[in-house]
Each structure stands twice: as structure tokens, then as C-alpha cells.
């Protein structure tokens, strides 16, 4: 402690003072107390409602015997397949649509702006009413979809929610319907932040139309698009509403996602919350790497997102 290196001796006293202040966080006495008092509420919330439940969950799911029970459950295996399908189609279809539509909404004119206001409706309306509406719309006998199919084309539509694949497709459709506007708005903001000069320069070099998109717009949006894909994947892994309201997990528990399986079937119907925790925790090998990559990406590209 008392040894002072030659380098430090050469520095003026003020510098050492600020260095010391840096180690103390730049705050002294009552100011430090205030700063700590200001962060205590959030730290308390974080410890009580994130750390405690997380460890409680880990403790609940720590019994290895649970996992053999989970993995031998055919409904769980179906759920894993559903989740894969949901991830593959839900995330990519909605982000691709959002990427294309954000280009469309760049068009000038009042009509585009008015259309955008309508287009964001699915996102602005709470999920519950619209998902209930879609559920009713897909009713085989009285639903709007089959009525319209019959009146317009004379076809008897299938009963959408009674077959596994149609029901799963309907749930994916509802998810895409609900969330495309949100990602479109974000990508639209991303496109708007690209300076016009770049497009002018590209025009001089002869890049128009598709080539302008492939060589100018998309490379500039690629990082944002990647971050959004990761975010959408994680949010979709925890999706509850679109499956719960549109298909209710049915028919015969064949269209569950992890969250609905864990909460609705395992905990509320079977009364085995440990099983539910284990089912949800089986997503951790996928979730943890995603979270790590995303946290790094978010930190470096904060300004862009």
C-alpha cells in the first residue's frame, strides 16, 4: 500500500485525486448514499422477482428423474416438434414480410401513411380480443373463413382447429398476423436511418431496383435484421397467447408450445408443476446461447437498434 511507483510520482496530485475518485465511483459521502438509495428499489425488484423465482425454478427442476419422465412423454415430444415448426416459420416469415413491407411503406404519399396507421392495428390492439376472434373465425361450422369460402368459391372448408397441422398452421398464422406490424415498424425506422446520400451515390453507380436492395439496403440492415431475428426467436420461445387462445393446445394436446404445455397442461391440468418447470427448462440449451449472443449484440449495436 505504501509503495509508490515511479510513474505515479511523476503525476500531479490532482490526477491521483481523480483516480481515487474513480475507484470510489466518483461519488463521496452523502452523494454516494443517495446514489445507492436510488438503485436499491430496482435491485430489490430484480432479486425478489427474477433471481428468486429463477433459482426456485432451477431447484424445482433439479431432479434428474423428472427429465426421463418428460422425455418419455409423447405430448412433450410433439411440443418440441411444434416449437421447431413455430420457430422456423413464425420467426422467418414474419421478419421476411416485415423486411419487404418496410420497403413498401417507404413510398411517399398520404396513402402509404394512412395504410401504415391501419397496418399497425394488430399490434396496437391487445392480443386477447383478436386471438379470440381468430379462434371463432376458424370455427368449422359458423366461422367467417369457411362461410366466406362457401359463399365466394362454393368450397366446404375444413374444420381448421380439429386437425393438428391445420391448427398449428392457424396458430403460426395468428402469431405472424399479430407481430408482423411491430417488426415492420422497427425495420422501417432502420431503413429511414440510412442516409439518402448513399442511395444517390449508388444511383450514380447504376444500382437501382433489386440491385439497390441487395447491395445497398440489405447489407446496411443486416446487423439489425440479425438482432431482430434473435430477439424474435427468444420472444417466440416464450409465446403463450397465440397458441393458448387460438388452438387451446388442442386437438388432443397436439399443438402445445413449451409455455402452454408447462403452465396449462402440466401445472393446471395435471397438477405437476415440477414437470412443467422441467419442460420449460429443456429450452435452456437453446435459450442460453441465444441470450449470450443477443446481449453482446445489443451492447455493440445499441445505437442502431
Amino acid at each position: 500500500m505504501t509503495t509508490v511507483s515511479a510513474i505515479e510520482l511523476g503525476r500531479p496530485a490532482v490526477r491521483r485525486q481523480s483516480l481515487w475518485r474513480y475507484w470510489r465511483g466518483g461519488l463521496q459521502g452523502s452523494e454516494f448514499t443517495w446514489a445507492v438509495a436510488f438503485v436499491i428499489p430496482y435491485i430489490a425488484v430484480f432479486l425478489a422477482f427474477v433471481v428468486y423465482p429463477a433459482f426456485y425454478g432451477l431447484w424445482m427442476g433439479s431432479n434428474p428423474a423428472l427429465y426421463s419422465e418428460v422425455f418419455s412423454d409423447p405430448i412433450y415430444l410433439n411440443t418440441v416438434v411444434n416449437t421447431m415448426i413455430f420457430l422456423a416459420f413464425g420467426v422467418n416469415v414474419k421478419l421476411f414480410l416485415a423486411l419487404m413491407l418496410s420497403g413498401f411503406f417507404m413510398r411517399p404519399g398520404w396513402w402509404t401513411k394512412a395504410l401504415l396507421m391501419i397496418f399497425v392495428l394488430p399490434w396496437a390492439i391487445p392480443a386477447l380480443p383478436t386471438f379470440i376472434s381468430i379462434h371463432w373465425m376458424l370455427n368449422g361450422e359458423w366461422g367467417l373463413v369457411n362461410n366466406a369460402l362457401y359463399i365466394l368459391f362454393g368450397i366446404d372448408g375444413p374444420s381448421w382447429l380439429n386437425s393438428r397441422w391445420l391448427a398449428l398452421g392457424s396458430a403460426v398464422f395468428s402469431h405472424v398476423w399479430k407481430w408482423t406490424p411491430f417488426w415492420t415498424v422497427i425495420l422501417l425506422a432502420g431503413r429511414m436511418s440510412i442516409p439518402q446520400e448513399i442511395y444517390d451515390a449508388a444511383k450514380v453507380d447504376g444500382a437501382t431496383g433489386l440491385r439497390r436492395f441487395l447491395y445497398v439496403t440489405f447489407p446496411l440492415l443486416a446487423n439489425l435484421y440479425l438482432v431482430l431475428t434473435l430477439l424474435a426467436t427468444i420472444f417466440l420461445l416464450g409465446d403463450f397467447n397465440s397458441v393458448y387462445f387460438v388452438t387451446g393446445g388442442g386437438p388432443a394436446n397436439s399443438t402445445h408450445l413449451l409455455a402452454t404445455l408447462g403452465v396449462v397442461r402440466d401445472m393446471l391440468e395435471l397438477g405437476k408443476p415440477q414437470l412443467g418447470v422441467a419442460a420449460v427448462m429443456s429450452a435452456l440449451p437453446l435459450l442460453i446461447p441465444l441470450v449470450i449472443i443477443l446481449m453482446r449484440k445489443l451492447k455493440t449495436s445499441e445505437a442502431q437498434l
Partner: protein
Amino acid sequence: MSTIAVDARPAAAAARPAERMRRAARRWRYATNAGAALLSAVILVWTLTPIYNIIMVSLESEGDVAVTTIWPSQPSAESFWVVLTEGHWYLEAFWHQFGNSVFLAAMVTLLVLLIGSLTSFSISRMRIRNGWMITNAALLTYVIPGSFLAIPFYLIMNRYGMQNNPWSVIAVLVTFTTPYAIFIFQEYGRSIPLELDESARIDGASPIQIYFRIYLPLMAPALVAVGTYALLAAWNEYLYQFLLLSNDRSMTVAVALGKFLNSDVAPWNYMMATAIIYALPPLATYYIFRRRMSSGLTMGGVKG
């Protein structure tokens, strides 16, 4: 004479390609406009069909829900009146539930703004030591899906006898919304010069005075954006409200709607009318604060 002929020929030759190009450009413009019109029509149908369906069913009179037409056979606003006057045993406590939803959303908004602004003030303005750890904790909470903690959270709340207590839901919603607030506040706070705080400190202002007199007024736009977001998130959330608020006195409109769906004999027209009334306050809030929200949105995105 000869000079004129030399001049006139290239001019005439040049006029024709120019005219042709103009025509091609016009045709191209028509084509893209037609394409845009077609795409607009597709977008409108795609977006509005489920919404049209809610309105259509809500306008049916009782018993007429199972129709095979694509427009209401005898439109009447009766079901809205039934909901507003609580005229069906499913809807006995509608206004009470509505009040519960309002209380929940208001408390969540208030707490998110308070905790979020205090935390980001301490981290980015007062530069508390190791503030980055708190930022990381918030980032982590933002990134993990809320439903993953639903089961342990439900069991913990049951253990402490907090079922049917609105504060259990308020706690969880504050937990999952505050991280977003912390980001937006930190991002937005960068545009406010630190020198303001420093000069106030030299003039003898205490941190709490700086927070109230300088930080909060300058952060007003971010507070509005985050407040709107928190209000909508709390009003629209379903899973935790469904798990934790199950009796008639404590449940919110969202839970009541979900309960409607799960009963076999539900009057669908009343349910859709309830759904519309439930959707109107957030919709109005969204369109009123849309411009202010969009700035926040581009900075952090919104969790689903």
C-alpha cells in the same frame, strides 16, 4: 441550307428515343402504382379480417351467433348495452373488473417510471460504481421471456398467500417492464449534457433536487414514451393475470375474457362486445401517443 439539314436530323432522331423513354417510364410508373394498389388491398384484407370478425359477431343479436353469412344478419348494438349495464350473469362484475384493470395498469406505469428513472439517474448521471452490472441485469431480464418464470413465480406467490392480490401481478409486470424503461432512459439521457448536473451541484443542489428539478423535466419525452408502453403492457398482459387473479373480485377484464372463452355456453356476441370495449382504451392511448412512442421504439424495441 446544308447546316440546317445536319442539325435537324440528329434532333429528330433524338426526339424519338426520348419520347419512347418517357412512354416507357410512364408505363413503368403505372405498373408500380397498380402493384402498390394491389398490395395495399391485400394488406387491408389481411389486417382487417379478424377485426371485422369481432365487430360482426358483436353486432349479432342474441342466439344468432351461429350464422352462415359473412355480414351480420340483423345488426344491433344490443350486446354493447348488455355489457355496459352488466346485464348478463357472466358480466355481473364488469365495471369492477374494468376498475381492477385500470388500477393495475396505473400502478405498474407509476412504479416503472419511478424505479426506472431513479435507477438510470443513479447509473448514468451519478455514475455509481459498478452501474454496468445493474444495466446487465436489466438487459438479461429484458431478454428472457416472462412466461419462463411463470410456474415458479405462481408457486412462490401461492406460498406467501398472494393469490388474488393485485400487487403480485403488479410486482411481476414492474419486473418485466422496468428494464425497457432503464434502456430508454439511459439512451435518451445521453442527449442531456452532464454539465447541467455539475453546475447544479456546484450551486449546492442535492442529488434529490437534481433528480426532481433537472433530470425529470428534461426527460419528459422519454417518460411519456415509456409510460405509454408500460400502460399498454400492463393492460394487455394475460398470462400472469390469469394465473394469479382468479376470483371474481380480483380478476381483470382480460382474465374475464379468457374465462368466457373456456366456457362452452358463452354468449359470443357479448364476449366480442366486451373484447371491443376492452381493446378501446389501449387503442386510443396508442394512437394519441404514437408519435412519442415511436422514438422510444426505435431505440429499444418492445417485448411481446
